[in-house]
């Protein structure tokens, strides 16, 4: 039988074993430790880019395919602020938040609002939206890469085990640490907002039963708009922060989309804390596997693992109990 897919998988496994063997000999534990530490850098970015989606999808159940574009918009806001007002990157973060949140609010008002309760239509609409946003940004800023400057005080590395030659085998850059700090702070803030305030309770009520929430005196339109805008604003912050480490161009958001989705479903959409678990698991396993094998294979393996995980834990790692 010509089972192409299976055999190619087998052959890849074979390749895998082959590639793993020499690497395994050469692996130094110090280097692996360093990689694991730096994996935190990946985790930070995943967490940051996934957080907005955890709101728009996890909480509001909007299948938002334009999530990447809101990240992109955040990056462009930062670019504009730096370019025209010579702002420090840190200063641009609030603007990125407000800017993207505003656009998010407009999008909610004109598009999403008409589609509640119809998740698949939302998916298509947001896909259309992502094309439009990319197109518009390209018209305004051209297709060229844009340059965003990281603040100089965040350059350099936090290093451990510095040896006599002055180099340190274990080091992580301050900027990566900054990213994870921002991500964790935003996560904490968001969790407080959602679980600790009446606004959060209302948001959850609205997304679970819109009609009843109305009957209980909740201004659902305002809540919907606010929540969506907040999720978009978070994406914007992600864009602002990573713009200095990555590249800024109209299609940049696409890179983050699939990963953000994987993070959110791995962790489970029911609880915000799931996203931390999701990004940690995906980020670190990606880092370790990529170090032992290589990047593309690590990606394939991690994606396959996520598929298997969904198979056995359909709703992610953290779920709430449901009565069917």
């Amino acid at each position: 039988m010509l089972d192409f897919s299976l055999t190619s998988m087998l052959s890849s496994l074979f390749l895998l074993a082959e590639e793993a063997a020499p690497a395994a000999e050469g692996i130094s534990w110090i280097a692996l430790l360093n990689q694991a530490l730096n994996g935190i850098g990946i985790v930070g970015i995943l967490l940051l880019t996934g957080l907005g989606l955890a709101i728009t999808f996890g909480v509001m159940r909007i299948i938002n395919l334009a999530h990447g574009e809101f990240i992109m918009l955040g990056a462009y806001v930062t670019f504009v602020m730096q370019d025209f007002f010579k702002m420090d990157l840190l200063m641009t973060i609030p603007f990125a938040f407000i800017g993207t949140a505003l656009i998010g609010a407009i999008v909610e008002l004109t598009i999403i609002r008409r589609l509640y309760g119809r998740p698949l239509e939302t998916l298509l609409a947001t896909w259309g939206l992502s094309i439009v946003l990319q197109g518009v940004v390209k018209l305004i800023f051209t297709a060229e890469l844009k340059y965003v400057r990281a603040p100089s005080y965040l350059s350099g590395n936090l290093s451990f085990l510095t040896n006599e030659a002055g180099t340190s085998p274990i080091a992580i850059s301050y900027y990566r640490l900054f990213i994870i700090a921002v991500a964790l702070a935003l996560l904490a803030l968001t969790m407080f907002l959602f679980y600790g305030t009446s606004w959060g309770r209302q948001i959850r009520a609205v997304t679970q039963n819109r009609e009843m929430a109305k009957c209980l005196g909740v201004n659902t339109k305002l809540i919907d708009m606010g929540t969506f805008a907040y999720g978009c604003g978070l994406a914007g912050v992600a864009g602002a922060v990573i713009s200095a480490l990555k590249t800024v161009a109209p299609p940049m958001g696409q890179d983050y989309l699939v990963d953000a989705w994987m993070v959110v479903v791995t962790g489970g959409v029911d609880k915000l804390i799931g996203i931390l678990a999701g990004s940690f698991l995906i980020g670190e396993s990606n880092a370790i596997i990529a170090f032992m094998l290589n990047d593309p294979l690590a990606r394939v393996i991690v994606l396959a693992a996520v598929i298997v995980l969904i198979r056995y834990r359909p709703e992610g790692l953290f779920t709430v109990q449901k009565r069917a």
Partner: protein
Amino acid sequence: MRDLTVGYGQTPVLFDISLAVNRGEIVCLLGRNGVGKTTLLRSIIGLNQPTKGSISFGGQDITKAPTYKRARQGIAYIPQGREIIPYLSVLDNLKMGFAASGKKGNRIPSEIFDFFPMLSDHLSRQGGLLSGGQQQQLAIARGLMCNPQIMLLDEPTEGIQPSIVQEIEDTLKRINEEKGITVMVVEQKIEFARKLAQKFFIMEKGAIVERGSTEQLTNDLLHRYLAV
């Protein structure tokens, strides 16, 4: 409420309905399946928009007001099918009432647990996990939390165990007496309706065909419209 005409899409379901409920009354809405009782309640809270006619509440015209404003003005709706917010805890479901009552507090008034002692055992469980009858009790309790002037209940005894049916009846009466809350119930159980309500309306094919005080609710009427 005056000349209310309501429909789903193109097809009208309610035709020129006019009725008035006085403050502090308990009224009961009767009628066969599908005559439009639920639709009427939904129109009052604003989930269905009338194509014609007007609704006023406490002297104010609310025909155009959005649902949440009506809720904040003191209309509480306990729908058919309970509509508990599934993944909020029982406590949070109750607290949702604060949105309508406008109270800031975080404490659930103890009278709620007097009315529904079962709830205090399940406060931290998710609302959606409760059994049907438990959810119904929660729904009524949540309605009370809204601090309403009028409660609209759609078949509140459906699926409730007999002893609690009595309790609900008592509770509604007490609420009505102690707090002066107006109550409007849709019911299929005539006995329940008879005991509870002072006034009744009977609906047939989207219109009110009979009305009066409960004493006037003769078997003849029941037979004619409810085919008992």
